[in-house]
């Protein structure tokens, strides 16, 4: 038996939680459907949570149900963004905030790796040039 696996899923915790207005439940089904698609066809799905009519308690319930997995990242560009994998591998939560700390986008991405975390080719090219320059400077310093 494979003993390596994700941490226990937190759904049991939320079974007793206040169901709010139940709008998070259809969303959880949609996430499960998208995860199935990712597994079978490799299709990624992004859900824009700001387009969902949440009632009081719905967002809390959704996040409780999703829980947190072992990966989390912080992006510092135009304000902080927090990205974490839920307790269900392949289901990521992405929260973008502006420089005043206010939320400007809130998404669930069902993917192997959220696209915002991937390094762009242009950045790699610029990074390579910068590293080569830094190495050249180091060599010049050494030879002095």
């Amino acid at each position: 038996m494979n003993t390596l696996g994700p941490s226990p899923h937190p759904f049991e915790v939320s079974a007793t939680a206040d169901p709010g207005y139940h709008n998070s439940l259809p969303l959880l089904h949609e996430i499960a459907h998208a995860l199935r698609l990712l597994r079978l066809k490799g299709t990624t799905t992004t859900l824009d949570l700001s387009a969902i009519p949440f009632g009081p308690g719905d967002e809390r319930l959704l996040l409780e149900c999703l829980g947190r997995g072992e990966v989390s990242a912080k992006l510092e560009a135009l304000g902080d963004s927090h990205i974490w994998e839920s307790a269900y591998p392949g289901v990521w939560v992405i929260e973008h905030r502006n420089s005043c700390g206010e939320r400007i986008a809130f998404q669930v991405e069902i993917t192997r790796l959220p696209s915002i975390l991937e390094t762009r080719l242009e950045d790699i090219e610029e990074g390579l040039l910068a590293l080569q320059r830094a190495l050249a400077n180091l060599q010049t310093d050494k030879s002095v």
Partner: protein
Amino acid sequence: MADLTTGTLGDTLRRNGVSRRGFLKFCTATASMMALPPSMVPVLAAALDNAQRPSVIWLSFQECTGCTESLTRSHTPTLESLIFDHISLDYHHTLQVASGHAAEAAREAAMQASAGKYLLVVDGSIPLGNPGFSTIAGVSNLQILEETAAGAAAVIAMGSCAAFGGLPKADPNPTGAVAVRDIVTDKPVINVSGCPPIPVVITGVLAHYLTFGTLPELDQYSRPKAFYGTSIHDRCYRRPFYDKGLFANTFDDEGAKKGWCLYKLGCKGPMTYNACATVKWNEGTSWPVESGHGCLGCSQPDFWDAGGFYNALSIPVGDISRTASYAVAAGVALGAAAAGINRKTKTEANRQHSTVTVDDLEKTS
């Protein structure tokens, strides 16, 4: 500060030191703001990168400045400031530094420099009763609108006053207020209604024009479908209670405490089209129905004259319970029925309408 007078939006962002990940984040938030599906982010990114810098002239007529307040107090300053850094807001008499002749000269210069290409934004209604009711630099609102609209690529009527006449047009409409669309008939006019409109809707429409150079798809009232395509009622989280016939009867009864439907307390959600139920207000904190008050219908034409805010869809108080039980039984037919009832109420209001002259105003003031 970087020179922002030339180049594309991509140039502006790069000059502001925005990284590629930052740009993607900006596009994600903008797509969300424009109510575009997340799958559109790459298309949006390409379009935004190349978006040119449009000239915008903003005229304010019979208004309360609430629409400008809504916009400038919107809670996504990074996004707005990037968009507003990029557009050239050449005339806005509340926000601009110049005043008097210098301000009017700026408007005329922008009209000449960008003839046929500038975007005209209007807030407030236009009084036709007497030119003196509302003027700018001694020129009537009607005249300024006609001459400024002539060279515009498109006109955005911001707020319910510009879109439908709004509060100034409320019965008995003492100034003879009309909407922008009543005057400007030979240009595309996009109505961004609401009293005030949701800030993100304002910037979403501007971002759409900025990105694609076109106006978004519009509904029968010339409003962008992305934000006004579904009713408040259809996206309301209290809808399951409406469907089960569970209503609050007073603002402090058990039903109200349990968060039941506010229909009987006058909620106009079933006949109101706006994005409040999803976008919400104050940084997504809440919206009227979530705070326990029915929707007033502020984004619909003549909402001020639709009976009473606390009457169930314009029905006299005595009829509320009968109307509610009818509504539960009739389900989807409610919207049409309510509109019919509303028309009846308006016809009665029109019958009582009497024209108010300047002399009358002087007599009563």
